[in-house]
């Protein structure tokens, strides 16, 4: 019996000493974490898309806790419901989220433009772009190999007739596709506006015309007809300023090549709320 005690007691004592040291250390050196952080983090959808401009949902939640000037309406995939929850947790006023959807600024499908080479390399836009700017005759246009569709976390993009299209009712507006596209064709557009320019060709009109019959030739007709001055032709392609656009549709009616179109851009949040 005695031998057992001689063995057990030192181990127990060492164990108690270690435990005491750890308890004291964890009390003395506890790192204060903002108690709101878990609650804030729970509000966010956890897609880690980066649309808010921070490194994932954790980064945004941390910024919200630390800095009261960070707006609570930056989560685009979460939309109004998340903004509302966040402002409840943080005790600030609710601000409406401007929901956005992705738009592919190219309409050069098989009907309107032609391939200049046969490409049978890696099935990836980024790889195809390295080979003379892709297989299509327009080097600005959609490469059609679906890097954006693969990147989309919500499967809202598909390739139709060689051009990427966004299935807007599934689009959460995270902007992952916009970062993926090697030709930078995709941008986020406020989802209440409907007029979109479906071309990104920055060549002069005659050159654009040669490679694609649906391209913007920079004729500036839209600039003239727009009653609110929201359209400007920059680098031979029309650009709509959505802060000024009143959604009248005059540009689309008068567009020579029909590359400005009225599209139904209501994203998934519209359908959720109604």
């Amino acid at each position, binding site marked *: 019996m005695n031998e057992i005690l001689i*063995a057990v007691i*030192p*181990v127990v004592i*060492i164990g108690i000493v*270690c435990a005491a*040291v*750890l308890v004291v*250390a964890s009390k003395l*050196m506890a790192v204060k974490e903002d108690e709101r952080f878990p609650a804030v983090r729970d509000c966010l959808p956890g897609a880690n898309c980066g649309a808010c401009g921070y490194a994932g949902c954790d980064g945004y939640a941390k910024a919200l806790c630390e800095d009261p000037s960070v707006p609570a309406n930056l989560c685009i995939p979460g939309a109004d419901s998340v903004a509302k929850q966040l402002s409840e947790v943080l005790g600030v006023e609710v601000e409406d989220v401007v929901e956005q959807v992705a738009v592919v600024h190219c309409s050069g499908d098989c009907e309107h433009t032609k391939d200049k080479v046969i490409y049978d390399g890696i099935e990836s836009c980024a790889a195809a772009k390295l080979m003379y700017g892709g297989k299509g005759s327009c080097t600005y246009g959609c490469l059609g190999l679906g890097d954006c569709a693969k990147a989309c976390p919500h499967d809202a993009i598909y390739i139709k007739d060689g051009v990427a299209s966004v299935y807007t009712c599934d689009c959460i507006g995270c902007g992952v596709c916009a970062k993926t596209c090697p030709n930078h064709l995709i941008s986020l557009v406020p989802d209440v506006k409907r007029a979109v320019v479906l071309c990104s060709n920055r060549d002069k009109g005659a050159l654009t015309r040669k490679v694609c019959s649906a391209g913007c030739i920079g004729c500036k007709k839209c600039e003239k007809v727009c009653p609110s001055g929201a359209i400007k032709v920059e680098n031979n392609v029309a650009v709509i300023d959505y802060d000024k656009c009143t959604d009248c549709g005059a540009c689309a009616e008068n567009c020579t090549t029909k590359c400005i179109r009225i599209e139904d851009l209501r994203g998934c949040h519209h359908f959720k709320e109604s």
Partner: protein
Amino acid sequence: MTKFIVILLSAVFINNYVLSRFLGICPFLGVSKKLDSATGMSLAVIFVMLMATAATWPIQHFLLVPNDLGYLQTIVFILVIAALVQLVEIVLKRYVPSLHKSLGVYLPLITTNCAVLGVTILNITENYTFLESMVNSLGSGLGFFLAMVMFSGVRSKIEGADIPESFKGLPVTLVAASITSLSFLGFGGVVENMFPL
């Protein structure tokens, strides 16, 4: 001085803990997929080995040996190392958050790593003095680092190789590990001949 160099070099190359003594195989196979996680793990191992030796050597020589409790060595060492790692984690989190973040999950993972326990016990069985023990621990940690970094390179090559279906995954990794450890047999006898005692 020569003795320290001999201990250091033989711990790194000849008695490499992973490749010759086959201790710490679990992180060697588990964490060596990427170079940065392999480096993070190895740095944490070096750090913990040094700390553990500094704590266990006095316990062995001033507590266990005088009281005839040598047989409690293993369990006491495990206890002390585990408590020590937890303590280090708390301290790092408070004072060096950047290091805590980069060591991340690896620090608590090492708590029960057999390489760490192996170093502390072998220091005792080899009858090293305190300084020699520290040098041996540093060498062992560096050896672990070397093995991890080398093997992560080997594994990144394996990723791109055309491997028969039945060999994919763990089998080819084990084959590669054994060949890597064979290559370390070549160091046998080198250090002894470099520094004739």
